[in-house]
Structures are given as structure tokens and as C-alpha cells.
């Protein structure tokens, strides 16, 4: 096929003959494209994981605030919320950060009612899979992978002792470990019966920290919010939409700051490309002169240079993105992932779900190809228009 078109044949011959000329540029480009692809892949993969996790969460969470200060929510609200039309799966929860002073780490303790319906689908399926008889035979909890690893390290093999505000110790058995796919949100999570959590945080019998519920018909969401505010004037409603947006912003922010800084690197690459090709092409003057002398027009030379650049861009793009894919989704993106997870608390191990959309690839291609072509355009024009007589002198 290639040999049938003399132009393409010539082009490939030229590229292979002058490999060393392009090798330097190729390797820099591959590194550049691999770096930025890795960051975008991580960011979109985490966003996807988060979206999947959030899809399983309850639609609404209500808490009570006193002049902006969060206080415990009366359990009686649950009964009033359930009366609102269109609301289902009302579930009171107790949750809070349990601070483990010796290591300055904290766990997210979530207390739920195991005998009731759960607002969150993830919890619902979790509760269904538990043998309640065994679970309640003694005080038990379900922990995230990060918590499990942390407790193992500190010699809490099967049980952990919580300190309650009353100054007592509460020994709780580790019943099960949460699946690793939930790690992004549930790494430092501990799930336990609501009564136990109440004791650990020292809440009264008729108090919870918040109440979650679902409204299956999302056209009703705004109506429900209006009605909720009639329940009590101290009510604060958090919608899933807001949480989604906040997370989206968080990862956009991290990826965005990276990209903005990366632009500087990209401009430097452009400068290098410009200079490098200005130099390379000036060595090629003679060659171009010969081509012009045997009848090639300026357009043909420009076409040759365009295809040459195109092949370089495409091949380094493919190599770079494939390398980044391997680095992120096969190796799990060591080092770079820390930017996104920020391991201030328990060490987190997140499984990257392979998620590469056309949009991400399109973004990467534009981000890389536009500066590349723009930098090479003027040097190639310059060499193409040199009069053949002058070039061969």
C-alpha cells in the first residue's frame, strides 16, 4: 500500500533514514505527553469512582444547626420527614470522627440502624449480606481497609477499645472488612450499630447526628426541600447534587492547577521545538534545494514537512498515552496518585478503575498537537521557500 504512493514511500524512507534527528524530540514529547496523560487519567478515573460511589448514596441528608453551629439532630424529625409525600428510606445516622490520640489519626465512625431500611444502596447491600444474629451476638463493627491495616499495625487483632466520653472503654469486635472498591470514600470508615455509636460519642437516646433519605422522583426534589424547611427552622439540608459538585470541583481544582503549571512546560517545549527544527531544517537546505530543483513546488515541500510532523505527533501521542495507561491502570500510578489523595490521614490504597473517555483523549491530543504544530509551522515554511539555487550553493 505504502509503496504504491511514491510520496508516502519517500516520506517513510526519509523518516527511517533520519531517525536520529527525530529521536531526541520524540523522547521529550513522549515524556511530556505521558506525564499529562497520567494526571488526566488519574483525575478522570477518580471522578468516575466517586460518581459510582455517590450514585449509591442517599439523596438528602438533614442536620440541625443552631445559628450556623452544627448540633445533634432530634430523632423525632425522622418521623416528621417520613410524612412528607415522595420520601422513602428515612434512616437516622450517627457519625463523627473518632480521634485516636496516640497516632493523631482519626476514623470515620458511622452508626446505622441495621434493622431498618437504609438510604444508601451501598449500605443496604452491605447490611443484607450480614448474618445479623452473629453480628449482634457481641458488639461488632465493619471496618474499611485502611482502618483494618492501621489496627493490625497497632496490635488490635480482632477487637478495638473505644474510649467513651464517660471515661469507660468499649471493646468492639472487628466483624468484617469493607470491599476495597469503596476505598476512595470508605478507607477510614467504621460501620457499627447506632446504639453503640451513640455510646461512643456520648449522645442522648433521642439524638442522632443526621438523617438521610431518598426521593426517587428527582422532579420532586425542590418541592421536598421546601417542605423540609417547614419541619423546623434550624434544619440544614445537604443534597447529593451539592456533594457531587463539591467533589467534581475538588478534582477539577487539582487537575486544573496541574494543567496551568503544565502550560509553562508546554511553552518551553514549543520553544525547544522551534529552535530545534529551525536548526534541523537549516541542515536540510541542500536536500530541500535538490527536491525543489527536480520539480517539487513549495506546496509539496510544505506537505512533506506537514506529514513528517504529523507522523511524529501521532506516534509520540500513541506511545505517550499507552505508557501513561500502563503507569496509571496497571501499576496504580505510584507517586502521582498522592497529589490527588493527599494522605494526611490513614494511608489509602485506591484501585484505579480503567476509565478513558474520548473527551479525555481529545483534550490530550489538542493540548499536545496544537503547540507542536504551531511551533514547527514557521521553521518548515522558512526552509520550504528558500530558492533552490541559493540552497544548493
Amino acid at each position, binding site marked *: 500500500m505504502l509503496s504504491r504512493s511514491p510520496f508516502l514511500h519517500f516520506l517513510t524512507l526519509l523518516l527511517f533514514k533520519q531517525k536520529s534527528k527525530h529521536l531526541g524530540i520524540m523522547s521529550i514529547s513522549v515524556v511530556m505527553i505521558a506525564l499529562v496523560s497520567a494526571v488526566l487519567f488519574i*483525575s478522570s478515573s477518580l471522578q468516575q469512582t466517586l460518581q459510582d460511589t455517590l450514585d449509591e448514596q442517599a439523596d438528602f441528608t438533614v442536620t440541625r444547626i443552631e445559628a450556623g453551629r452544627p448540633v445533634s439532630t432530634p430523632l423525632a424529625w425522622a418521623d416528621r420527614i417520613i410524612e412528607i409525600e415522595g420520601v422513602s428510606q428515612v434512616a437516622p445516622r450517627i457519625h463523627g470522627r473518632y480521634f485516636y490520640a496516640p497516632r493523631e489519626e482519626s476514623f470515620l465512625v458511622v452508626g446505622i440502624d441495621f434493622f431498618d431500611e437504609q438510604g444508601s444502596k451501598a449500605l443496604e447491600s452491605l447490611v443484607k449480606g450480614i448474618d445479623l444474629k452473629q453480628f449482634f451476638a457481641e458488639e461488632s463493627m465493619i471496618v474499611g481497609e485502611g482502618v483494618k491495616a492501621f489496627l493490625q499495625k497497632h496490635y488490635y487483632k480482632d477487637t478495638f477499645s473505644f474510649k467513651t466520653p464517660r471515661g469507660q472503654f468499649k471493646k468492639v469486635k472487628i466483624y468484617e472488612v469493607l470491599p476495597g472498591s469503596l476505598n476512595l470514600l470508605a478507607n477510614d470508615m467504621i460501620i457499627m450499630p447506632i446504639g453503640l455509636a451513640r455510646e461512643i460519642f456520648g449522645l442522648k437516646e433521642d439524638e442522632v447526628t443526621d438523617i438521610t433519605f431518598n426521593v426517587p422522583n428527582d422532579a420532586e426534589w425542590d418541592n421536598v426541600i421546601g417542605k423540609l424547611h417547614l419541619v423546623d427552622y434550624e434544619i440544614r439540608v445537604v443534597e447529593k447534587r451539592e456533594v*457531587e459538585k463539591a467533589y467534581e470541583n475538588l478534582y*477539577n481544582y487539582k*487537575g486544573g*492547577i496541574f494543567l496551568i503549571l503544565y502550560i509553562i512546560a508546554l511553552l518551553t517545549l514549543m520553544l525547544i521545538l522551534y529552535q530545534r527544527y529551525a536548526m534541523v531544517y537549516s541542515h536540510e537546505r541542500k536536500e530541500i534545494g535538490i527536491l525543489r530543483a527536480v520539480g517539487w513546488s*513549495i506546496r509539496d515541500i510544505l506537505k512533506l514537512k506537514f506529514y513528517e510532523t504529523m507522523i511524529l505527533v501521532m506516534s509520540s501521542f500513541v506511545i505517550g498515552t499507552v505508557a501513561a495507561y500502563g503507569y496509571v491502570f496497571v501499576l496504580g500510578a505510584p507517586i502521582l496518585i498522592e497529589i490527588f489523595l493527599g494522605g494526611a490521614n490513614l494511608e489509602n490504597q485506591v484501585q484505579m478503575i480503567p476509565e478513558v473517555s474520548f473527551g479525555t483523549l481529545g*483534550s490530550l491530543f489538542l493540548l499536545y498537537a496544537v503547540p507542536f*504544530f*504551531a511551533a514547527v509551522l514557521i521553521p518548515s515554511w522558512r526552509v520550504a*521557500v528558500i530558492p533552490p539555487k541559493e540552497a544548493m550553493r
Partner: protein
Amino acid sequence: MNEILLSSEVIVYLLSEALLYLLLFIAAIATLGILKGWNFDRFTKRQFDLENRSYLVMSIIFFVLGLKMLLLPYFAYTIDALSLLVPGAMCAAGVIDANDYGSPLLLLKIIILFLSGLWLGINRLDLEEKHYPYMKLKSWFYLLLFILLSAEIVLDILYFTHIETTNPVSCCSVIFGEIGGNSLPLGLDIPKLLILFYLLYALLVLIVFTGHYLVRIAASLFFAMIAYYSVVYFFGTYIYELPTHRCPFCMMQAEYRYIGYLLWGLLFTGTFLAIESAVMEGIFGRDALKLKKISIGFLTLFVLLCSSYVGLYYLKNGVLL
């Protein structure tokens, strides 16, 4: 800091546009020089320099136009991706209406793509001749284009810096739906719109091989407009399989297999080529049989694609919406 400007799509988009504008600016300056000193009959060094310079202008515009063709769908994709951040927006329709710059920007982009396509056509004619007969014409044309392109980049920046993430915007069903009080232009209703749609298509096929250039241009533009309304108000509802969902943007999302890009792409290219062929034949007296064939091919594909959604829906469900 504005969250919109941190979204990676927006950064990539604005960077690309800025770089391309830089190149276009260089081309504009070169064009001014050409306009000032161009005289083909002279054998001075200056004239040769200018001829060389015209190749720079040509390569820049060729390159930029190629990328602008990619950037228009990318723009649609970008604002679609932003719909997560803008409250109330469910697709690009809401985001484009988030401020007053959005709709003019989109319109301007389409006009620019149209005009730059024409520029390339003239450029091709110019290079076929030995004396560059259209050099002055295409230079002035480019300067006009450059003014539009400058307006575009200004609008780009204004648009993306003025999207509020706190004020809710309307979703597409409000903008295009019955609630918004929006109805079809010229007092049309759906049956009349469809009759017009197919009649105009038939008219285009019939007259494209005749010599009525002005009629052909007018018919193509009118068909494009009617086709837009037909897709939004009728064919779109079959793509979404929902009689109340009217939106030109949602069909570009993954749920509808990105069919919108193909659909609008076919309509745009088909109309453009129809008009270009009329211009080539009418103004420059060239033979444009190939262009005409391709344009009719694209428009036929477009009509078939639209109609097939209705047909398949009827076959599957036994009723129409």
C-alpha cells in the same frame, strides 16, 4: 477563583484558541504586507518575498482551519462537561445560556467555519492559476475573517470568565420546551415543518445541478434552518424517545451514542458544500460537480439518519410519539 477556569477541558480549549490566534495574528500582519506591495508583474525581490510570504499565510490558515473544525465539536463537548458544575444545567444548552456571550459565540464559530471554508476554496482556485489572480481578493477576505476571529477570541474569554457557578440556569426542556413559550418560527406547526423539510430537501436535489446559483444558496440556507428546527422539535424527540425532550445538545452525550456530532456534522458539511459549489460555479465560473455530489450525499445521509430514528421507533413500538 472561578471553578470553570480550572476545568481541564476549558484550559485546553482556551490554550488552543490562544495559540491559534497567535498564528492567525502573524498571518494577518503578513497579509497586510502582501496587500500593500503586491504586484505580480514586477520582478523585484520584494515581490518574490511576498509570494513566499503568501505561502506562510496559506499554511497557517490551512492548519488553523483544520483545527477549528476539531475545536467546534470540542467546544460543544467542553460546555457539555461544564453542565455538571453549573446548577440547573443538564446539558450544554443550559451552559451556553449561562451568560449573554454564549449564543453569539456559537453562531460566530459556525459563521467563521463557513467563511474559512470558502477562503480555502478561493485559495485552491488561486493556486491553480499561474498569476495568483485572486491574491488581492483572498487577502481582503482573510482580513475580514481575521476581524471575526478576533471577535471570537474576545467572546471566548468573556464567555468562559463569566459563567456563574452559583446562579441556576435553565435546562434544555425549559429553553426549547413549551414551558419557555418558545415555538416554531413563521407560524409553523410540526406537520407543516416536516412537509417543508422534505420538500426543501427534494428542491435542493432537483436544483443543485441547474444554474440558479442564488436560488441554490438561498435554498441551502433555508434548508439548514428548517432542518435545525425539525431536528430540535421533531426528530430529536425520537432520538431521545421522549416527546417532551427537545434539545440540540443532549444528543451529543454518550447516552445517545454521540449521534449529535454526526448529525450536525453532516448537516453543516452538506450545507456548506452546497453553498460552496454554487459560489464556485456562479462567481468563479468553475466546474464543481464533485462538490455537488458530495454535498447531496451528505444531505441525503442526514435526511436518512433523521428519518431512520422515526422509522425504527415505529417498528419497535408500533406507534409514533
